[in-house]
């Protein structure tokens, strides 16, 4: 059996345990990352949902902002959901805040409204023929995308799942459902099985 990627999950604040549970269902091990040292040997990183303002403070305080940029520059795969998407964006508005800038997108925080606008939707993606559940919690909207960003799913006219090379971004929370489609796709990106804009799944 081939070697599975070693997956790190940023665990400073947020729903990192939900991502860990999803990976466990896929039989993939994880490490929780709280300091730059924890990143050693990690091939793929997940930035979970949570409060992006809180998470960003920890990234800067621990020097993880720099480590994550280096990780991406080395070719590490990164998957951000909701707050994680905000951390990965090049620009963040409403309010403006600093971010890692690893994906050429601009996001608007809490763009649908407050918690009362949170909802579960069902939507098609280019990852599988079946629709998947999409849980939106105080979700951001991707307001602008660069030319290298590929849209994998839209919902209500907005891109909600996008990819730029080895960076995958969801404005919803696949980790809060029992569906593992998006995580499986990310693991294939991390294993180098999807080099470009592959839309056909290379089933193992």
């Amino acid at each position, binding site marked *: 059996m081939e070697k599975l990627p070693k997956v790190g999950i940023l665990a400073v604040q947020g729903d990192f345990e939900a991502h860990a549970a999803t990976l466990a269902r896929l039989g993939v091990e994880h490490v929780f990352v709280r300091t730059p040292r924890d990143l050693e040997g990690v091939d793929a990183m997940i930035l979970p949902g*949570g*409060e992006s303002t809180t998470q960003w403070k920890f990234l800067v305080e621990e020097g993880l902002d720099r480590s994550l940029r280096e990780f991406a520059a080395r070719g590490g795969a990164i998957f951000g959901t909701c707050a994680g998407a905000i951390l990965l964006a090049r620009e963040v508005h409403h309010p403006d805040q600093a971010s890692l800038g690893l994906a050429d997108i601009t996001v608007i925080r809490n763009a649908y409204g407050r918690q009362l606008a949170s909802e579960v939707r069902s939507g098609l993606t280019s990852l599988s023929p079946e629709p998947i559940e999409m849980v939106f919690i105080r979700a951001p909207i991707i307001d602008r995308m660069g030319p290298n960003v590929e849209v994998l799913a839209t919902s209500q006219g907005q891109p909600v799942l996008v990819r730029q090379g080895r960076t995958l971004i969801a404005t919803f929370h696949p980790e809060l459902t029992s569906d593992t489609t998006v995580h499986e796709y990310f693991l294939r990106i991390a294993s180098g099985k999807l080099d470009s804009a592959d839309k056909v799944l290379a089933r193992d």
Partner: protein
Amino acid sequence: MTATQGSNGSYLNDAWRVKVGLAEMLKGGVIMDVTNAEQARIAEDAGACAVMALERVPSDIRKEGGVARMAAPKIIREIMDTVSIPVMAKVRIGHFAEAAVLEALEVDFIDESEVLTPADEENHVWKHDFKVPFVCGARNLGEALRRIAEGAAMIRTKGEAGSGNVVEAVRHMRTITGEMRRLTTLRGDELMHVAKEMGAPLDLVREIARTGKLPVPNFSAGGIATPADAALVRHLGAESVFVGSGIFKSSDPEARAKAIVKATTHYQDAKVVLEASEVLGEAMKGLDIRQIEEKDLLQTRGW
């Protein structure tokens, strides 16, 4: 695929999942009591993952007495306009009309709280009627499961609010986690009796027996005043902490808020908790729980 996924709680409807979803996002963070926009700004800058808007912090409610009610909507709105993190606000136990006002105001979470003067001594709010999620306090597993059955999307220990003394939060967290551990050791035919003794719905008792954990996030509140207090309750199973009087009744709110946030995330690393503790001045003056008269305890409000 199982019908439930731990605290993701997909065993009920989508509205429920969205409520528990926000609670999931608050894990590993600190929720701070604030009484105005200025304090909310300090809390957000310190790394709070949410703020709780209230009229007076619990230690002042304890000192000043009188009826404690939902905060003025004007103050809550100012706080909502000031910070980008979720804003919670408290309602009196059973006061579903205050809750409806907060929902109309579009707060992100409602705390049906024993810190305020109860409006109903028998009935809690039927929280399924609301789209906004609720958090409720509990001292033991039976109380936690009754609140979840009513629709609470998050449970917190009651502790003893405004005491600056962590002993009750510890007692309640150990009680809840201990009772859950015990349930996992019982035979299926023993669970009906347990449900009867606890006064908790059988389906939830059976779920805890199977999973060993609550179907909603389990946070800690009521007496946390120092970084080490936060680390202690995290070790005992709290997935996040609420800090009430502990921050803005200390001599150094900004530094203390930051230090408690840091200790909550890095609770397993004593060196970081030490670092967080070293920069601090005086914590709030605490109360010995044994010196508080029975009638003045907040934790015995609600059931």
